[in-house]
């Protein structure tokens, strides 16, 4: 049998240390050469241009306020995410009602639904008095495009991330500790504050970092709702369009450095951060634990979720549904007018998404094994474990800007190649991190048992590691795909090619004359396809059980 022979050959090859060495080192080289170095190096190539900013006081003040706006908004929004998200996550896990499991599923959506569609939806809800949203109650725009709408937007897309992560952590949490605390006389709130939260601290910090990173990086939707307001990514985009390379490079560099510094500080100080658990106020905390207060807290959590997250996010459905009843729908399906460009963009987005996902799965798998199983010496895996996160925390438009400067030196690379490189960098950490974590969870004794029973490295990988990490592999791949389809900042920075989110930004900003029905329908198509992707993921996971 041919299959048998191939397995045999691969087993034979994988038994040779040289081959394994080659696989791990090529994966490492790929990471440095294509993922990590280009985005870091590009900016430095334009070192000499950076002074330009200071020649123009107006530009200097714009740059300063854009940078501070980025970090202030990110930190503010992430803190609010935690304050609002923790009680909600608590309610979802401990409330145990059917409604809550639906909310739990809804919390998955932001991972899949493109942020640009969210941006347009919020624009309709908060700012468009004619769209039937909250503004129509006032007859004028309740929240005009600008910094406040940017904050609302960032809260809307980062809050579910925090909820998702904490819900996961709470589900894994051993409830016994809280029970122990109660048998010792602690009120519910005291038990949660002094026992559960400190134990969940790593997950809380992780969710904070994710929210922070998303807020710092988001470009497409922010551009839609910002009007003349500038944060870091918008400033980079504006200077890029205006051809002011010096300010663009400088702000990119600062965003990258400050982001890296913030994440390093959180990573180093986070574990040492002591939660205030020494002091206990038994009577106050007992009062705050009573069911009336808990009900109020839960109601407020639900209200925040509905008013600030769910309803604004779904609002894009109104123009979409009206569009289906109108001629816009048939135009869209026929590819008439603006729709020709739309379908091309969507095709491009999915094409890039698929290529990037496949490439990263191939080169990311050995990297995940290397990190999880500490191959290639003791030091390298630890360093790589930290470095793979870098593209995650760097604002994607800054990463794209730097990347495009770097690759421009290689004129033979077509624009679509740049696009692929940029998306490779941005999506890489999502997959490698998920896979490495999944492999780490496999008991090493299972691998040992397999080896003792005679499995060669390839067979071991095929029969033990792959089946046990299948879920993470699919999930990681789909996250990567979704992230690539959603990515706007880096795409804007490296190419003039229009991917779907870039096109939608153009439509909303009236660069291309599109009606609100058309924009709504465009968003709806994108969401629908994302939904199908999510559904496929769920079916895969359900069909094959946990593994």
């Amino acid at each position, binding site marked *: 049998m041919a299959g048998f022979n191939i397995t045999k050959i691969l087993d034979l090859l994988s038994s040779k240390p040289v081959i394994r060495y080659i696989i791990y080192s090529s994966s490492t080289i790929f990471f440095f050469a294509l993922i990590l170095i280009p985005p870091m190096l590009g900016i430095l190539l334009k070192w000499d241009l950076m002074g330009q900013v200071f020649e123009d006081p107006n530009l200097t003040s714009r740059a300063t306020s854009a940078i501070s706006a980025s970090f202030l908004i990110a930190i503010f929004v992430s803190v609010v995410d935690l304050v609002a998200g923790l009680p909600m996550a608590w309610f979802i896990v401990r409330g145990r009602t059917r409604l809550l499991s639906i909310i739990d599923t809804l919390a998955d959506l932001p991972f899949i639904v493109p942020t640009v569609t969210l941006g347009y939806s919020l624009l309709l809800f908060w700012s468009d008095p004619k769209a039937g949203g909250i503004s129509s109650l006032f007859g004028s725009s309740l929240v005009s495009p600008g910094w406040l709408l940017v904050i609302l937007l960032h809260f809307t897309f980062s809050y579910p991330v925090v909820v998702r992560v904490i819900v996961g952590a709470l589900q894994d949490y*051993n409830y*016994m*500790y809280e*029970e*122990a*605390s*109660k*048998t*010792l*006389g*602690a*009120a*519910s709130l*005291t*038990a949660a504050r*002094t*026992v559960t939260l*400190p*134990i969940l*601290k790593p997950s809380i910090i992780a969710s904070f970092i994710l929210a922070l990173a998303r807020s710092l990086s988001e470009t497409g939707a922010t551009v839609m709702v910002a009007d003349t307001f500038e944060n870091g990514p918008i400033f980079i985009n504006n200077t890029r369009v205006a051809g002011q390379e010096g300010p663009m490079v400088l702000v990119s560099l600062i965003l990258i450095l400050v982001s890296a510094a913030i994440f390093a500080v959180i990573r180093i100080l986070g574990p040492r951060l002591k939660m205030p*658990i*020494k002091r*206990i*106020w*038994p*009577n106050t905390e007992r009062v705050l634990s009573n069911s009336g207060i808990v009900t109020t807290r839960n109601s407020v959590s639900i209200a925040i979720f509905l008013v600030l997250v769910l309803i604004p996010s779904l609002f894009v459905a109104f123009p979409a549904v009206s569009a289906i009843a109108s001629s816009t729908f048939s135009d869209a399906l026929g590819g008439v007018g603006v729709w020709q460009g739309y379908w091309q963009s969507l095709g491009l987005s999915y094409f890039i998404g698929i290529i990037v996902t496949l490439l990263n799965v191939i080169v990311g798998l050995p990297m995940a094994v290397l990190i999880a199983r500490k191959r290639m010496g003791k030091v390298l895996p630890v360093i790589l474990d930290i470095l793979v996160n870098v593209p995650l925390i760097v604002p994607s438009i800054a990463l794209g800007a730097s990347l495009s400067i770097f690759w421009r030196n290689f004129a033979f690379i077509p624009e679509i190649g740049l696009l692929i490189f940029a998306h490779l960098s941005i999506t890489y950490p999502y997959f490698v991190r998920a896979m490495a974590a999944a492999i780490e969870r496999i008991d090493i004794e299972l691998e040992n048992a397999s080896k003792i029973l005679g499995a060669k490295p390839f067979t071991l990988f095929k029969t033990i590691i792959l089946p046990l990490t299948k879920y993470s592999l699919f999930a990681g791949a789909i996250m990567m795909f979704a992230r690539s389809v959603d990515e706007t900042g880096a795409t804007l920075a490296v190419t003039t090619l229009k991917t779907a989110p870039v096109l939608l930004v153009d439509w909303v900003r009236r660069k291309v004359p599109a009606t609100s029905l058309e924009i709504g329908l465009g968003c709806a198509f994108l969401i629908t396809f994302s939904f199908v992707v999510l559904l496929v993921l769920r079916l895969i996971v359900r069909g094959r059980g946990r593994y």
Partner: protein
Amino acid sequence: MPEVKVINVSKKFGGGKIVAVDNVSLQIQDKEYFSLLGPSGCGKTTLLRLIAGLLQPDEGEIYIEGKLVNNVPPEDRDIGFVFQTYALFPHMDVWNNVTYGPRVKAWNEERSERIGREMLEMVRLYERTDAFPHELSGGMMQRVALSRALATGSKLLLLDEPLGSLDAKIRFELRNELRRLVKDLELTAIHVTHDQGEAMAISDRIAVMRKGKILQVGTPQELYMNPKHIFVANFIGESNFLEGHVEEVDKETTIELRREVFVQISDITKKKGERVILMIRPETFVIEKGRKKKMNSLYGHIERLRFEGTNIRYEVRLENEDSIEVSRPTLVGEWFNVNDEVTVSFPPDKSYVFTYPSKGLREELAVE
């Protein structure tokens, strides 16, 4: 004084499909060391958690110190609880674990410190106050868990398989220590275990549970000497079961075993003709070489033997094809070899007779 009363309590899981505790009533006296004993899944831990308030009963009432506590949350029941895996807070050192109770009860600092020190000295861990749980051995963690549970000053101590995850030797040491402590501090203790040896050694009284029901409550001696249920007879100590039927009831009961082997027992509660199971403990038998004519003699040969240290265990194949196990102290009397012809006998008052279970013997003794 903590006296615990459980009245007609039931608890179901899985939408009522699994009855974990089935209409159980129980009374535990003040200062009593009480064990809930049974195979895994019998509902003993559920019952303990109901008493602690970690679970709510579907039916029935639970009283602690005469007060109905059904609607009292665990934090207000004034109990000490030791978890099977200890549940020591991983982010707190030994000292903060032990003084957690006094702190959440807002005792003044001096009192908290004094109690913490007393508790840790009592379990001989005062030098390890700075250690974190992951730095301790299993036995130490167990002792910290115990002192943490007692530091709240509670007089009712609930223990969920507290010795279950320890090595055999330490388990033996700690169970003696545990009983001494409970008695010295005049506590009421409810101890859940699946280990009958542990329950026998540590308890004043034991409730044997199976499938959510309590089969028998009694002192260790009562359960051993006078089991009321065939499952209890099997679960407490060891037993041989021989099938037969009642041939004659007079001053004694004559039972016919297989192939017309007749034995006499003192129990005269069964009716003539009734199908029964005769239960005799392995250590009850007298075993002699050759064919001796005595009361209640059974003849056979040694089929196998196992040396167990303190005892030697013989598997004897009787002439009627029944097989029995006989256990003799190693250092008393003579030893036998495989294939030796032997006579095995037992006194009429040290054997028990049970009505043959309607679902069959195997089903009645099943522990799962």
